[in-house]
């Protein structure tokens, strides 16, 4: 250890240091080491900017670790070194000096933690520096006095070897203070690697920072590895207006594959605020700090703020206790506002996928909704395929399956619609039933040129033939006819009395569906077990049990068969085009279902998606017409109220969801149909249709509500958290 020959009095009272720097170091003692490393790095950078040296720049941080006491430390660089004049400036408070990685930055030494602060935090500290062959030794006392050892002494080769400084350079040594609690070399290195203040420097290829265990001579290159990126969420450059100037900010936000630890100083989830190449000033997610929803967000904010840093009249951007950017500084306030706004948008998008419905159930429901909408609107065919002078059936002849309803259209030319216009519908065969409507009334003159009315037919009599006759009354003898034949429904004649109907099917890649297994009642005996075996590609239940009691079995009976719906599922994804099968056997009878995996058809219609969103709105649920998306906002207080433990299995949650979604969907149906001039929803007062629209919605709620409730209850049960 050098010898102290004289003392230079300090410039400020030690209370100042107590109040500011020591506080900062106590909160985060690694900053002492980091300040010394950064000081060495800055010295290299200044040399590089002057063009006198090129990378790579080595900084050696030696630790002598002891079990019961804090480690001692030596930080060595081979950078510019300091002569006695520069040394005096560097260790003095209140003067202006060039500092940091920016050689043009002349700023008050009071503004940042620097070399002298780090030295003061070290017990028995000494700084030895060589510049142009002259050696200087200094130390800092806790009362700000500067101790002076050798001054401008010519350095010998032996001394150089001992110090490890071949040309110019600096060595700072001392004992870390009591509040530095780490004792193990490996832990200290790990902490330094993860410390946010050192992160940019360790990522910088120009610098090599080595940790050395002085006891074992183990040498570790300190390197920071960025978390694995799942995807880039945002990469944007924007300006922050401050004092009539614009400052460029480059913001990059990534989403990591795994959730990251949060918070300073060792967290990974957050934004690294820095300027220059490696001068980190903060690590925070602003308003969203420690918000679990952002635990996969990380990135950096590069600030082109050198002019603010250089301005000696400007208040420091970093707060007095060096915790990070001062939130009260007007520049920081604006910067945080801009970033909060962007993080909020990211959060909303990300949180939309935080909860998810079961995909196949959701798609099934979306398709069903679009089908119901077509039916409700009354114009399944928006553009009539034919334009009759009066009215005509479309198509003019149909084959329908027994026990299955069939929809046909009657297209009416609006020009023939007058007061009391009515068309009566009649079937010439009693076995062919017109389910609805029995007659068609149009009371108001339609706005479209043609009105399409849907007619639902049904028959249970295979082989029945007949006509549906549409007659226009009163005072007209116009009649139109359509032919109907009822054909056999293949579900009633399963091959060998036990078969999948149909015996081949397609299934969406990664999806699931139900297939019909039909059993003729004549082949059902005491056995109740149906065995199922599927190929590797397909997942199906291993067996299916028919109801034990005869009366329960009757409930599944349709005409002469028992129809069982067997769920099947594709194992995993990426099987498009592959084929599989499911074999069912009942006693000695068997049936084979061939399954082909196909790509998913796109959903078209009024609703294309349904999602649980994290947006904060005053609404519980909203149909976004332009995007064709139905959103439910789980941050709404009423939704939150129902989202308690195991919410998706709770009847109150399911009912609440079902009712909310049903009402919103029906509102969307009616308002959209009215806008599309559907004749299904006549509006008397076109200037103020709101009340009438509400009436239509209520009406639809009573007619279509129960069916939708059931669908949405089913959907609510599939809501799950965390699978994105």
């Amino acid at each position: 250890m050098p010898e102290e020959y004289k003392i230079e009095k300090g410039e400020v009272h030690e209370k100042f240091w107590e109040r500011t720097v020591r506080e900062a170091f106590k909160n985060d003692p690694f900053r002492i080491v980091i300040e010394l490393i950064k000081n060495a790095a800055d010295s290299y950078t200044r040399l590089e900017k002057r063009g006198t040296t090129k990378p790579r720049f080595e900084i050696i941080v030696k630790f002598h670790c002891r079990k019961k006491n804090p480690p001692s430390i030596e930080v060595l660089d081979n950078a510019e070194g300091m002569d006695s004049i520069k040394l005096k400036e560097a260790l003095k408070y209140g003067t202006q000096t060039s500092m940091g990685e920016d050689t043009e930055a002349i700023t008050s030494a009071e503004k940042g933690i620097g070399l002298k602060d780090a030295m003061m935090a070290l017990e028995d500290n000494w700084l030895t520096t060589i510049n142009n062959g002259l050696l200087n030794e200094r130390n800092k006392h806790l009362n700000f006095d500067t101790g002076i050892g050798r001054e401008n002494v010519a350095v010998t080769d032996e001394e150089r070897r001992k110090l490890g400084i071949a040309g110019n350079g600096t060595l700072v040594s001392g004992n870390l203070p009591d509040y530095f609690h780490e004792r193990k070399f490996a832990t200290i290195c790990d902490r330094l690697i993860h410390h946010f203040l050192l992160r940019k420097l360790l990522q910088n290829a120009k610098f090599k920072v080595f940790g050395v265990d002085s006891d074992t001579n183990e040498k570790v290159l300190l390197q920071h590895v960025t978390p694995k990126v799942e995807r880039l969420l945002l990469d944007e450059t924007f300006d922050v207006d401050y004092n009539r100037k614009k400052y460029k900010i480059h913001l990059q936000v990534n989403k990591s594959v795994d959730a990251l630890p949060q918070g300073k100083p060792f967290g990974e989830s957050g934004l690294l605020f820095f300027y220059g190449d490696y001068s980190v000033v903060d690590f925070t997610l602003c308003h969203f700090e420690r918000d679990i929803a952002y635990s996969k967000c990380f990135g950096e904010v590069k600030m082109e703020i050198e002019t603010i840093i250089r301005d000696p009249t400007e208040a420091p951007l970093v707060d007095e206790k060096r915790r990070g950017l001062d939130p009260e500084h007007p520049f920081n306030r604006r910067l945080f506002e801009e970033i909060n706004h962007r993080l909020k948008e990211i959060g909303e998008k990300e949180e939309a996928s935080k909860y998810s419905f079961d995909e196949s159930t959701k798609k099934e429901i979306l398709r069903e909704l679009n089908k119901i909408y077509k039916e409700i609107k009354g114009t399944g065919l928006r553009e009539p395929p034919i334009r009759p002078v009066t009215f005509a059936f479309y198509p003019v002849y149909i084959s329908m399956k027994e026990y299955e309803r069939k929809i046909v259209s009657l297209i009416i030319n609006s020009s023939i619609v007058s007061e009391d216009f009515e068309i009566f519908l009649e079937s010439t065969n009693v076995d062919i039933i017109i389910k609805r409507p029995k007659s068609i009334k149009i009371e108001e003159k339609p706005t479209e040129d043609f009105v399409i009315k849907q007619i639902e037919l049904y028959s249970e009599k295979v082989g029945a033939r007949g006509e549906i006759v549409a007659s226009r009354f009163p005072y007209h003898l116009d009649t139109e006819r359509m032919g109907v034949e009822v054909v056999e429904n293949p579900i009633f004649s399963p091959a060998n009395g036990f078969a999948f109907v149909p015996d081949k099917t397609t299934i969406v890649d990664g999806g699931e569906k139900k297939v019909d297994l039909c059993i003729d009642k004549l082949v059902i005996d005491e056995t109740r077990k149906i065995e199922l075996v599927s190929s590797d590609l397909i997942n199906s239940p291993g067996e299916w049990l028919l109801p034990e009691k005869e009366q329960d079995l009757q409930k599944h009976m349709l005409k002469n068969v028992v129809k069982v719906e067997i769920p099947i599922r594709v194992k995993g994804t990426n099987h498009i085009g592959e084929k599989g099968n499911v074999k069912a056997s009942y006693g000695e009878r068997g049936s084979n279902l061939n399954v082909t995996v196909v790509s998913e058809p796109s959903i078209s219609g009024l609703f294309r998606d349904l999602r649980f969103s994290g947006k904060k709105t005053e609404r519980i649920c909203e149909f976004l017409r332009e995007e064709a998306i139905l959103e439910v906002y789980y941050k709404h207080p009423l939704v939150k109220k129902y989202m308690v433990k195991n919410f998706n299995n709770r009847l109150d949650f399911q009912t609440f969801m079902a009712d909310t979604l049903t009402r919103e969907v029906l509102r969307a149906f009616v308002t959209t149909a009215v806008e599309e001039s559907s004749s299904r929803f006549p509006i008397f007062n076109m200037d103020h249709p709101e009340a009438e629209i509400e009436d239509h919605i209520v009406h639809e709620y009573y007619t279509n509500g129960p069916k939708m409730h059931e669908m949405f209850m089913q959907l609510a049960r599939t809501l799950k958290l965390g699978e994105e």
Partner: protein
Amino acid sequence: MTGDSMKDEDVIRQSVEYNGDYEPLDKDRLVLFAVNYLESKKIEPTFDKIVAAAFKLFPKKFSLIGFPEYPDGHTIYYCVYNHCTLDKKWLFGNVQSAFKVTERGKYFLDETRKMLEGKIVSTRTHLTNPRRKETTFISILKKTNAYKKHMQGDEALIDESDLLEALRVPSNSKGLIQANLTKYLEYARRINESSVIKFLEFAGKRLGGENNA
């Protein structure tokens, strides 16, 4: 027997083109109508008679491209057997057994009559020309950027590569320009595509001018 057959053929020969706008209708319906026409004349609808009758009644729909005086038996075969019989089941029968309008077919025949009389208008448009090489390639040409820009009046935006693409000339085989242009013009004239003819004339001028330059 021979005399009866001759009589049928004479009846068909004497048939005249349907007096009405039949071009918007699809060919299957017109074939159905022709079969019923034969039945109504007590002529057995054998395949050859259907071909002759369909052509006599609706020559604009059933003639060969470039040969309006000859019937397009190939197209009529597809309509009568593949479509009307196998798919739509408007007819019953086959080429060996002759054809017959089914119960189902009667409803569509009735609808077809109404369409021919203008009581019902079909909103779908149907091709008049059969799908042959000429229609196929002119149809592809109509989908090219150069043709679309030409139709929008954006001729200034059409560059040489657009035109070469439209004429299916690889950029390293510019010697094909004249040959392809001639062939396309021939096809367009044969199927009476006046807008395509104009486009090809424009393409000829533009490419010819550039070549000379």
